[in-house]
C-alpha cells in the first residue's frame, strides 16, 4: 500500500484535490482551468499509477467538478484510461461523479466522459452541493 497521500488546496482556477491511500479514494472538487494542467495533474496521475501498482485495494474517484478547460478534460481522461487498464486487470475501480442537480449540463458532460468506460461510473445528483 502506497502511504503517501495528496492534498492540494483549491485555488480560484484549480480544484481541491485529495488522495487518501488508506481509504482508496481520490477526490477532486471545484473548477479546473489551470495555466499549466501538466503541473497540476502530473502528481495526481503519478499518484493513481503508484496506487494501482502498489497493491490490490480498490480505488474510487469522487468527482465534484464544475468547469473544466480543455487540458483538464484531457488529464481527467488520462486518469480514466489508467482506471480502464486496471479494470481490464480485474482491479476494483469506480467513479462517482456528483453534479449540482440544478445544472443538467454537467450531467450531460459527465455522461460523455463515461461513454467509453467499462468500469462502474455513477453520475449522481448532489442535492446538498452549494455550487
Amino acid at each position: 500500500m502506497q502511504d503517501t497521500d495528496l492534498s492540494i488546496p483549491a485555488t480560484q482556477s484549480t480544484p481541491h484535490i485529495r488522495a487518501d491511500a488508506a481509504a482508496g479514494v481520490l477526490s477532486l472538487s471545484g473548477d479546473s482551468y489551470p495555466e499549466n494542467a501538466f503541473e497540476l495533474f502530473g502528481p495526481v496521475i503519478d499518484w493513481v499509477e503508484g496506487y494501482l501498482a502498489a497493491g490490490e485495494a480498490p480505488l474510487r474517484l469522487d468527482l465534484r467538478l464544475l468547469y473544466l478547460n480543455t487540458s483538464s478534460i484531457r488529464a481527467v481522461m488520462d486518469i480514466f484510461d489508467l482506471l480502464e487498464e486496471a479494470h481490464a486487470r480485474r482491479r476494483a475501480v469506480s467513479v462517482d461523479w456528483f453534479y449540482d442537480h440544478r445544472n443538467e449540463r454537467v450531467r450531460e458532460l459527465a455522461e460523455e466522459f463515461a461513454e467509453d468506460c467499462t468500469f462502474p461510473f455513477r453520475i449522481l445528483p448532489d442535492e446538498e452541493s452549494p455550487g
Partner: protein
Amino acid sequence: MSTADSELDRRIEALLADPAMGDHPLRDALEALWERYLAQVHRLDRIASLSDRFQALVRDRDLTRTEQFEKRLRQIEKITRISDGYQEMMRELNVQLQQASTHDLLTGLPNRRFLAERLKQEAERSRRSGEPLCVALGDVDRFKRINDTWGHEVGDVALREVAQAMDRTVRSADLCGRWGGEEFLVLLPATRLAAAVAIADRVLDAVREVRVEGIPGDYRITISIGVAEWSAEERPEAALARADAALFEAKGNGRDRVMAGI
C-alpha cells in the same frame, strides 16, 4: 516439394543405405553431395522463416501505429466534444448572468440599473435628434396594505401581475421596468407630454383590470403615475425628480390617477 522431388530423395536415400552399393565408386561422392543438399535445404527454410517473421513484425508495428493513431484521434474528438460542451455551458451561464444583472428577478422586467443606463442613452439620443423624451413614474397604491392584509406572497403576485399589465400596455418602443419596491418607471422616447399622459391613463385602466388569486374580487389594485417631459438643458435625473413630484401630487389627489409634472 513435388512428388518427383520426394521420389528422387527416397531413391538416393535407398541407394546410400543399400549395402550392395557400399563399394560403388560413386557412393562417397553421392553421399557428400546428398549431405550438402540437405544442409542447403535447411538453410533455405531458416531464411524463409526469418523473412516471414520480419514481415510479420513490420506488419504488426504498422497495425499498432494505426491503432494508436486511431485511438488518439478518437480521444481528440472526444476532448473536443466535451470542451465544446463546457464552452456552451459557460456561454449559457453568461447569458443568465447578463439577464440577472439587468433584469428584476420577481417581475422579469428591466431593473433599476438597466433603466438608469437606458435613460442616459435615450437622453443622449434625444439631445442629438431633437426628439422629445418622457418618463412616467408609477407607484402601486396602498401596496403595504395588500402585503399586510393578504401576505407577502400575494403581494409578490400582485406586483408581477401589475408589471405584466403595464408592460403589455406601453408601446413597443417604450421601456417599462421595476424602479424599486412597488415603483415602476416607463421611458417613452419620441413622445410629448400629452401623449405620455394618454399612455399613462391606459396603464391605469390596465392595472384596474388586474385580478390576483388571494385578493377578493371586489378589491381594485390601482396605481398612481407622475409623468414628466425631459428638456434638453437638464440632466435626465431632473425629469425623474419632476415625475416623482407629480406622482406625489397624484397620491395626494386621491390616487389611481395621472399627474403631469411641468
